[in-house]
């Protein structure tokens, strides 16, 4: 259905990009706070609580529209190198978030208000930024090489 309807594809692709801007655009500020580069006077946990509804909402729309777009060209997307890089980076971003929440965040009470969080938290922030920028770049590469 997605493949046959030109407007459906265009609208889904536009929503996918706008949702990406919302989710990654807000997540990057949490990552920059973890790195100690931005909003240093704000508690890490407070920023997280305030940002996550926006990041999460964007992420949900991005995944839904991404899934629908993929269903329209699953076979050719699967063989596309940029798509494979993108998907691997998404999995790695998930692992990075999981490691942060399960391990690094356990000691947050000790560094929540410090301008510069410990190395493990800074690394989680840096890794997240690098991976999400790679996902955006691979996504654009994919649309140039696939469609």
């Amino acid at each position, binding site marked *: 259905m997605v493949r046959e309807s030109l407007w459906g594809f*265009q*609208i889904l*692709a*536009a929503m996918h*990009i*706008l949702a*990406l*801007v*919302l989710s*990654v*655009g*807000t*997540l*990057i*500020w949490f990552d*920059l706070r973890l790195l100690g*580069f*931005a*909003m240093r*006077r*704000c508690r890490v946990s*407070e*920023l997280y609580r*305030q*940002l996550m509804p*926006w990041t999460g909402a964007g992420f949900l729309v991005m995944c839904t529209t991404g899934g629908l777009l993929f269903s329209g060209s699953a076979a050719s997307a699967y063989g596309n190198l940029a798509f494979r890089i993108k998907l691997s980076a998404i999995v790695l971003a998930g692992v990075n978030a999981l490691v942060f929440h399960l391990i690094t965040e356990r000691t947050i009470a000790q560094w929540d208000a410090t301008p510069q969080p410990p190395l493990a938290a800074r690394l989680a922030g840096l890794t997240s930024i690098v991976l999400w*920028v790679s996902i*955006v*770049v691979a*996504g*654009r*590469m994919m*649309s*140039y*090489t696939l469609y």
Partner: protein
Amino acid sequence: MAAKTLGSLTNVHIDFFLWLQSTRVATTIANSLFLLAGLSAVHLVGLTLLVGGTLVSSLRMAGIFLAGRPVADITGDPDRGVVVGLGISVVTGLLLFAPRASAAGENGVFQLKMCLLIAAASFHFTARRRIIRQPATSPGQLRRAGLVGLALWISVALAGCAFIFLE
């Protein structure tokens, strides 16, 4: 789908766009899928930084986000992110415009995007900035300035999406 032209182009514009398209930079970009895709990707990264930054700072101004924190503590860094994101988007945007200057220049959606961009940037760097810096700004003024700024940048992003996908 060809969008209607908002404003008709003068001969000077058309000559300039044709010259821009024939430059070495424009032809190099036009002939390289890798450069086109790469520039488009970096353009989107810039936009993400810009819209994310404006969202964080505007929502604080609107009292929706981190309302307990002083405005200056929250808006400073994201607003610097807006400047960096805008710089990245403008440079990559110009490089993406060059190879297709005459087609994009007479595209109504692209013209609308440029008008919205000028409006958003002008508002961001004049009225909005003045309102943040004024000590006597009322919460209502702050909220309105935040929401107007956010709406303008989002409309630039929407017009950008429409330009890519409606062509």
